[in-house]
């Protein structure tokens, strides 16, 4: 999935809130510094949505979607390099999380400017697990658009900000229709890719369908997030196309077996608030 050459300058040159300007600068600098040292680092979460392409930022600013911290993902083999890099730039690792998560998650804070960084390793492990594998390096700064969207749609109890982020992504991107492959040169959400992933996991599928329903309740014109008429139309159309693609995808045997059990069995893994372990 290639980007226009002026993509990064377009993102970084637009006006934005001070806090976000600082975070964005830091995020981009860290990704670049990591690359120089042979470490693959990519931005995820809402910062990733803002940095992925120019369109979402202004809409998120208009919605008052403040940036709080930077979330990264790193391949397992680059953990040591990532930690070394961040500590060399003055970040202090959260020892509590270091012990509690045993190398599957890191958290850092800069004692001077207070920037908080969360680093996930290899995969995004929340209510459902999103593995990145080779796709981790498809975008120069963030993870691919599909995973950014899935990161929001996998949440079992979406908060207001999750709904905002998912809606903004759908409102600012085209989606490929069922059976279509996303054009290589355009930033189009590949619904087929998401559908194929969800056809393997009933639980993940169920959560995403529930959340799509939540973004645009069937039979109503209610707008959970005010992204303007054009944005709302696009988001609604995108959600529907995604839903159609998911429905059309043939499901695996494991998916069909799990479907028979339905909601009688918990279909997501519990995510706790981040409290200290010790």
């Amino acid at each position: 999935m290639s980007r226009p050459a002026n993509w990064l300058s377009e993102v970084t040159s637009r006006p934005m809130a001070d806090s976000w300007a600082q975070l964005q600068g830091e995020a981009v600098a860290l990704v670049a510094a990591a690359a120089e040292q042979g470490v693959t680092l990519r931005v995820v979460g809402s910062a990733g949505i803002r940095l992925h392409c120019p369109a979402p930022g202004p809409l998120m600013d208009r919605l008052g979607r403040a940036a709080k911290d930077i979330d990264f993902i790193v391949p397992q083999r680059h953990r040591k390099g990532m930690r070394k890099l961040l500590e060399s730039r003055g970040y202090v690792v959260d020892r509590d999380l270091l012990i509690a998560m045993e190398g599957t998650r890191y958290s850092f804070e800069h004692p001077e400017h207070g920037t908080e960084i969360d680093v996930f390793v290899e995969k995004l492990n929340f209510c459902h697990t999103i593995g990145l594998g080779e796709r981790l390096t498809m975008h120069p700064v963030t993870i691919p658009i599909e995973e950014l969207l899935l990161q929001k749609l996998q949440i079992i109890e979406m908060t207001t900000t999750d709904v905002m982020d998912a809606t903004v992504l759908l409102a600012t991107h085209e989606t490929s229709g069922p059976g279509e492959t996303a054009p290589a040169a355009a930033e189009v959400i590949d619904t087929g890719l998401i559908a194929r992933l969800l056809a393997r996991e009933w639980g993940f599928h169920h959560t995403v369908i529930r959340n799509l329903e939540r973004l645009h309740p069937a039979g109503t014109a209610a707008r959970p997030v005010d992204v303007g008429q054009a944005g709302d139309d696009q988001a609604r159309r995108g959600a529907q196309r995604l839903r159609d693609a998911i429905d059309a995808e043939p499901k695996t045997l494991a998916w069909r077996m799990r479907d028979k059990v339905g909601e009688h069995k918990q279909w997501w893994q519990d995510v706790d608030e981040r409290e200290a372990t010790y």
Partner: protein
Amino acid sequence: MAESVTSSAMAPGVFSRKASGLVRVGSTLDVFIFNVGLVSVGIAIAYNQYYGPSLYPGAQPWLSTLLAAAGMIFVAAAFYCWSVVFPRSGGVYVFLSRTINPGVAFVMSLIETIILLYYAALAAGLIVQVGLASFFGAVGTVAKNATLVSWGTTVAKPAGVFWIGTLIIVIAGALLISGTRRYFTVQRVLFVIAVVGLAVIAVVMLAGSRNGFSSSLTSTTGLHYNQVIAAAEKHGYAPAGTSFGTSWKFVIWPLLPLLGAVQSVGIGGEVKKVRRSQLLGMIGAVVATGLVIALFAVLSNKDFGYTFQGAVAYNALTGVSSGTTATAPWFAVLAGVLGHNIALSVIVLATFAAWIWFWIPAEMAYTTRSMIAWSFDRVAPNRLGYVSENVHTPVVAIGVSTVGAVVFMWFIAFKAVAFLTFIEVLLVVWGAVMVAAVLFPITRKTMYAASPAKNFKLAGIPVMPVAGAISAVFFAVMFVLLWRDPIAAGPLIHPSKMPVEAWITLGALVLGTAWYIGIRRYRRRQGIDISLAFQQIPIE
């Protein structure tokens, strides 16, 4: 975490998470297995059936087990309240340091750590004595293989217990170093093996009979059922009918393993949905293991006979070799004889070894968490909480735990440190936590009011202080029973000859106090006020 989003108007300061959530390692099942493993059904059955009928004639282990389990329900309720007030790893140290006094908490936690490492070593020793030696003894006896029988006696000697026990402890340490996820996975697999094995033994015992056991005993060991009893009686064994009083005196034996049912308090910060997990994990473990242990006592009486169990163990304990099996007649050996089948003997002994194993990494994991909590609060060196960049686990704390357990392995193998004497000390430490549960709503009113424990009521009675009060009384009674029972423990402090355990406890008390005073001054010189760590408000 949840909030419905139906309005199109987004107010400033929209609802969001403070930070990305965490998928913690331990599930409800992991907590349950952790606690059930720490009860160790294998150790409980072995102790009950070996020491009950032989040294406490008239005591019915099933009754004693149910009495101990009844008391432990209240202990579990009180610890459960603590675990939701402070959903942290670090065990009693966290509770006491935030509510009573950090210095007292550190010293108590240090003593608890030493005791639990002793029990980790004890379990490693039991795997050799009750598991491996019985394995060779039973299989050798059933297969009529003298070499295996001689191995059984060889490994049970001090050097065998020490070296094999040390190897087992090192393996447990290596498992913890490989990560908590892997540890929980291994425990899940072993739990399935242990439960299936126990179910097989239960079926064999349900189908078995006294006559079948008697004839199998003669054909495999050459012993005659009635002659074993006669030999014991000749050497002073006095069989007695069921006695509630003696069963009550014996309650301290099943209490030892049942104390493990609440030890998930030590890993509270690592479990998902702490309220549900700890409730089912603790109360569930007390109830489930209490019933299973009692069931096996009933089955043992049915197949082996109460008097025979007493007699054969009595003969072993008093050196009447003509009236007992070649290797000590632990439950596993008798069950192997009943099965009269090599494959079944292997299943029986593998099951018991698996059950005993659970104790070792779990006790070490608990002590490791305590050490890390000290380190984080700066009452211990930062190095204790060091996490390896290669394996991503706290290797220093795990290493200290491993070395500590090996030291105790030496004491157990070569110095025969008493069985239950340390429990007296543990009861004092945990008793303090129970008293703290009573005082918590009074001395830390604001903290209690903000905690979930405030809402835990049964018929309008607040659970935390009441369960704490009943548990404190229960522990006090158990302490007196232990103190007055020279078979199990006896007085910890003996003016004429202080036991090793007393010196160890006294040493930990003095050194722990001195350390805490010293480190507080040292940290102050560094400009660190360690008391700030103890001002923490529990989550709402």
